[in-house]
Every structure is written in structure tokens, then in C-alpha cells.
């Protein structure tokens, strides 16, 4: 099972802070595409991904238990 976290405008679009889904074996790009279609997520080309709190590439393969987070352009400071 995997926990998938959403922030900022993505959280508004999905309507949840996180989802629990089994997405192990998929690449980050595949998961992004699936969720993007299902929830009609905007501007996904600007969204970064973190696996277990570290930035990850689109081609990285998700493992069982990984925590995935979608990181829209940050605006702290």
C-alpha cells in the first residue's frame, strides 16, 4: 500500500489531503498521468514529485510502502 499526498491547488482539486492506493511497480510518470486524468489535475508539468520525502524523477519506480507526494511550485519565504 502507498500513501499519496497532495498540497496546495492539487489538494483542492483532489479534495483530499492524501489517498491510500497500491501503486507499487508503477513509475512516477504513470501515477501522475493516472491521477491527472482521474482528478483533472491542472498544470502537472510544473509539479515535482517526492518519494519518501526526497525529490524523485518521473522514471523512478514506486516500491511497496513508499510515501509519494506531489509538490506544486513552492512559494515559501
Amino acid at each position, binding site marked *: 500500500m502507498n500513501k499519496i*499526498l497532495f*498540497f496546495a491547488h492539487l489538494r483542492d482539486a483532489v479534495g483530499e489531503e492524501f489517498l491510500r492506493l497500491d501503486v507499487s511497480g508503477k513509475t512516477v510518470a504513470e501515477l501522475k498521468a493516472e491521477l491527472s486524468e482521474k482528478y483533472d489535475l491542472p498544470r502537472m508539468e510544473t509539479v515535482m514529485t517526492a518519494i519518501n520525502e526526497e525529490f*524523485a524523477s518521473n522514471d523512478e519506480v514506486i516500491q511497496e510502502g513508499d510515501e509519494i507526494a506531489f509538490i506544486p511550485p*513552492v*512559494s*515559501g519565504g
Partner: protein
Amino acid sequence: MKLYEISKEPINIQDVIDKVVQREAGAITTFIGTVRELTYGKKTLFLIYDAYEAMAVKKLEQIGREIEERWAGSQVAITHRVGRLDITDVAVVIAVSTPHRADAYEANRYAIERIKEIVPIWKKEHWEDGEEWVGNQLETKAYPSGKPEEGDLSE
């Protein structure tokens, strides 16, 4: 003592400064980011900051390590606020101490620029006529590989 924090409470600036006091330092700089009323002529009522807290702390720690490697003898502490902030409230405090003053300015500046690149914190602007999550300031940056590029991660 936690040098890198995400705080739901107002930030005590002196507490952040105290974390970087050292006998070898002749200079401490702080950067205090405050909520400005007007941005490009538009009036902000208040802001909400949200963070991916665990990762944000890790990324602040990373920025601290980068600075301590680049500027010899430097010491860094950063606290970023989350939640609702009103005009003039303090969103972030960065304190950097170094033996000599030029480094204290440069290293501090580096910290705020890096925060705006890699630390997962977002602000939502609330105006009289609406609200919106703010992306990178110009809304122009894309991440085709899905993560920050080399040019984003190393200055």
C-alpha cells in the same frame, strides 16, 4: 535544540538568533520575511502558509549543510511559519553567523533563494475578491523531468 523548524506559532526572532551565536563569529545576519500588504498594486488581506512538514525540515537542513560547506565557519538556523498570517506577520526567519561580515550577507541571501526553490511550503493569497495558491513567482517554471533540474538544485 532544533536549528530547522516549521512552526504553527509566531516566530520568536531572538530565539532563532540565539541558535547561531558562537565565539568565533563577528557577524550575524537575519532575514525576516514579512507579509506585505501590496503586491503589484493588489491588496492582500491575509495569507495561509501550508507545508509538507517532514520534507520541509529535511530540505531546510540540506540548505544549512550547503551553506556550512560553502562558507567556512558559518552556522545557520531557519524557522518557517505555517497557518494564517496577517499583514506584517513574520513568515520566515533565517539567521546566519560567520567569522566575517561579507559571508554572513551572502550565505543568508543564498538561504532565502534556496528556500524559494526546493522547500515544500506554499502560500495562499487572500484578496478582497478571491484567493489563490501562489506558485513560483512568475508561474513560468516547468519541471519536465518531474524534479528540480541540476540548475535548480545547485545554485
